[in-house]
């Protein structure tokens, strides 16, 4: 009987220099973001005094992409998640709000990681991006409904966004600490 000899992989399974591997990694992260989006929508948070609050776990995946992969991956996962969520669940009224919020959050994420990567920790980045996400959503609502009255909701959303962003930031730090480098793409040093 012929024994099969084991040949270990010559490169890390997470090496995304190969286009196919890069696509697979993006697909995996997108699926994760979609699952998180769906799960957090099912959570019964109506007992909270703050209406419209979301835990923001999908944003955790986008921030993870930005830190560990690159900003292009983070943007593609973020936009694709918003689009597919609207297609899957048919909630097109929320599509423009979600898209605007996601783009606002990504813009701030890109700015922070480009200019303040060594100054602000993942905790601060998550909190700031969550606040930017809510700001973007309200701006989209104000433009679509042609009324600034929607901003009466802003202080509540800002507080809720900062709290949920802090929670996802804590999770982000724990995640970076827990995952071994063999399953992570090596972040390019000094570049976002």
């Amino acid at each position, binding site marked *: 009987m012929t024994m099969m000899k084991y040949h270990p992989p010559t490169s890390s399974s997470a090496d995304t220099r190969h286009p196919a591997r890069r696509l697979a990694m993006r697909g995996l992260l997108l699926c994760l973001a979609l699952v998180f989006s769906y799960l957090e929508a099912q959570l019964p948070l*109506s007992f909270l*005094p703050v*209406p*419209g609050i979301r835990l923001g776990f999908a944003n955790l995946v986008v921030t993870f992409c930005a*830190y560990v992969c690159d900003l292009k991956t983070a943007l593609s996962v973020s936009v694709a998640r918003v689009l597919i969520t609207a297609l899957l669940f048919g*909630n097109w*009224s*929320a599509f423009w*709000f979600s898209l605007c919020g996601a783009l606002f959050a990504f813009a701030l994420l890109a700015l922070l990681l480009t200019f*303040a*990567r*060594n*100054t*602000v*920790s*993942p*905790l*601060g*980045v998550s*909190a*700031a991006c969550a*606040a930017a996400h809510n700001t973007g959503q309200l701006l989209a*609502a104000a433009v*679509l*409904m042609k*009324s600034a*009255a*929607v*901003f*009466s*909701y*802003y*202080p509540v959303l*800002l*507080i809720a966004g*900062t709290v949920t962003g802090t929670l996802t*930031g*804590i999770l982000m*730090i724990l995640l*970076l*600490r827990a*995952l*071994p*480098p*063999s399953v*992570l793409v090596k*972040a390019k*040093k000094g570049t976002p």
Partner: protein
Amino acid sequence: MPHPKDRTKEYPAPLCRGDRAVYLILLLLLVSVSVLLYAKPVSAADAASVHIQSDGAESVYPLSEDRTVSLTSCGYHLTVTIENGSVRVTQSDCPDKSCTAMTPLPMSGGAIVCLPAQVIITVEREGGDDDDEISSADIILG
């Protein structure tokens, strides 16, 4: 097997100077927006009419008269109740249900918004601000 590298050492520690600056900016933003929005709450005595914007149309009702308004906007049905000088959304079949949890007007001094249904409810008083009123008195000397 090499020791897993602690990736957190590649990033600043939590609550570093940058994080504190971020939280400070968020706090300043919160305070400034709150002051702009709620510095002049509309009191029940001044409030005069309820404006309901939905589906591009606007309906106006006097705040002093109790009534229940049923409206349909963007496929969602809402019930707005005007009672005892305040207005609130008592029923909504939107997926969010945040509009039913919002503080009744005019105590909040802001607006009730239902984003899925694209409905905005505000309370506006008749006439101008008190600051614009000029009281005149005829003084007769002699």
